[in-house]
């Protein structure tokens, strides 16, 4: 056995190690060490908990077996998952944290003596509030993440699902959860506790289905945040510092990422949460503009342009991830560099399906991270660059965001691709992007459309170089 005070000190230490783990991510050099701190923090937390429980009989054996099973599954996934599937992996993992929080809350509700929360039917009011909040947020995180996972994986259509009165229904359900928690405190009734969890599960589904594919970066960050608040809620119930610190860290981390993503689209958080973008603005965009002349070219034209350029900026987007074109892209860039062309990469904050998605893919393809730049760092360089190579990005390059106040994406920060001397736009067709609006860039004189799959086109360009 271990004294409660000593135990609390150990939990504090693991909380501090988790802070250092996040701190390490301020630069790639320190990040690996940070991750190690995180692992040590986790090992300490688990170790002292086992010692404090002091039950080394059969239960301990089951614990080890389950840790081994879960650990092997996790290890297997971690090594097998392709980098392009990272968004759905993270969504999937969030759902597990959510469900674990629900399970722990249920367990605490059924057997409150173990956690010193009073006895069944007579649980401390504060603990009841904390555990039902933890369970509710956990349940929302669980089903919400499952929906996000299905959408990202393509099992469920990425287009928003909306129906009349949806937001009112969500509001009513949300209020119902709060009212039920209130009555749960008064009556200690089992059935109310289960209702709270059920409603929250439903709410998680309803909250995520109206949100479309390209808004996924916001959704994932938001669910990340929720999983943190759920953990914090459980942390209060269990009076556990490590859990409270971690929950607060993760909660605020996810909230900040959501904020950064929303800012990247110049939309308010509520605007994203309250549903589809493409769904509402489709009508205004389908004004017949299709007849405008477009210059299209082939791989040789593109190769010629880039070989004779002195600087090229690559603008990757979700299309690159879909086509798995990152390795071909790196090869192309290597060839260009051999020809003395200066190449850099420009990444829009909301490119891809999760924060930092493009950066990971480029890193996977061995692109050095100091050649990859964020929007603010590189946007002025477009004016002086010879070729912008847009691969799989669309809305984030649309100059309409700066010129047309009517456009749904007006005010969204965009990459000033149109300022480059020439623009190579790899795209399968002229179809509009996620926002459902036409991209002016297609029709500019300095734009050459390359109609093909991102990977195939890039490979052909390599051959022609």
């Amino acid at each position, binding site marked *: 056995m271990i004294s409660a005070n000593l135990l609390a000190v150990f939990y504090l230490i693991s909380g501090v190690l988790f802070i250092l783990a996040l701190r390490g991510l*301020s630069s790639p050099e320190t990040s690996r060490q940070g991750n190690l701190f995180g692992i040590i923090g986790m090992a300490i937390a688990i170790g002292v908990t086992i010692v404090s429980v002091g039950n080394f009989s059969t239960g301990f054996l089951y614990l080890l077996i389950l840790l081994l099973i*879960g650990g092997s599954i996790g290890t297997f*996934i*971690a090594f097998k998952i392709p980098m392009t599937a990272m968004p759905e992996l993270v969504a999937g993992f969030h759902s597990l944290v959510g469900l674990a929080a629900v399970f722990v809350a249920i367990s605490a509700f059924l057997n409150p003596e*173990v956690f010193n929360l009073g006895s069944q039917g007579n649980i401390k009011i504060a603990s009841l509030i904390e555990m039902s909040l933890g369970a509710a947020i956990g349940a929302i995180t669980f089903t919400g993440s499952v929906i996000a996972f299905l959408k990202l994986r393509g099992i469920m259509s990425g287009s928003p699902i909306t129906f009349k009165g949806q937001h009112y229904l969500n509001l009513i359900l949300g209020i119902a959860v709060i009212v039920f928690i209130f009555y749960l405190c008064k009556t200690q009734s089992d059935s109310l506790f289960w209702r709270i969890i059920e409603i929250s599960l439903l709410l998680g589904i309803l909250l995520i289905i109206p949100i479309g594919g390209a808004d996924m970066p916001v959704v994932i960050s938001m669910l990340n945040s929720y999983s943190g608040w759920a*953990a914090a809620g459980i942390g209060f119930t269990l009076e556990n510092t490590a859990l409270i610190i*971690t*929950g607060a860290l993760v909660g605020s981390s996810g909230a900040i990422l959501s904020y950064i993503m929303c800012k990247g689209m110049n939309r308010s958080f509520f605007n994203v949460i309250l549903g589809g973008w493409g769904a509402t603005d489709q009508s205004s965009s389908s004004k017949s503009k299709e007849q405008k002349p477009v210059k299209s070219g082939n791989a040789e034209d593109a190769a010629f342009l880039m070989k004779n350029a002195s600087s090229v900026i690559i603008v990757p987007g979700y299309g690159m991830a879909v086509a798995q074109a990152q390795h071909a892209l790196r090869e192309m860039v290597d060839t260009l560099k051999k020809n003395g062309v200066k190449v850099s990469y420009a990444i829009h904050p909301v490119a891809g399906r999760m924060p930092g998605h493009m950066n990971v893919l480029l890193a996977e393809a061995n692109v050095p991270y100091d050649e990859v730049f964020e929007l603010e760092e590189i946007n002025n360089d477009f004016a002086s660059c010879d070729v912008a190579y847009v691969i799989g990005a669309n809305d984030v390059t649309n100059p309409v965001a700066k010129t047309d106040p009517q456009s749904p994406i007006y005010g969204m920060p965009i990459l000033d691709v149109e300022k480059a001397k020439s623009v190579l736009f790899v795209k399968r067709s002229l179809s509009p992007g996620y926002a459902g609006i036409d991209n002016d860039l297609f029709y500019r004189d300095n734009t050459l459309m390359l109609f093909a799959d991102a990977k195939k086109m890039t490979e052909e360009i390599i051959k022609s170089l």
Partner: protein
Amino acid sequence: MEIDPFIFRLSIFILSIFIGYFVVWSVTPSLHTPLMSVTNAISSVIIVGAIIAALAGEAGNIFDTANIFGFLAIILAAVNIFGGFLVTQRMLAMYKKKKKDKK
């Protein structure tokens, strides 16, 4: 008058939110994906609750409903802990700097 221990925990919570705020703003945007996977891994520290739920309680009565929920939560959290940290490790190992000019 004594201060309720809840207030101490609330203070820790609020201050941690601020720490999180400042630490996360200093994370470089190119590492936002590893940030998500590592926060995911550390939030699985909820496993401490699961362990207590599963193991505590009278010996011999380990298959009570409450304990079983604890055991289930242990598996879920274990998947997350190993998966989360290892996939982060794998991603971070890919971030390399430009090679210094060969002489």
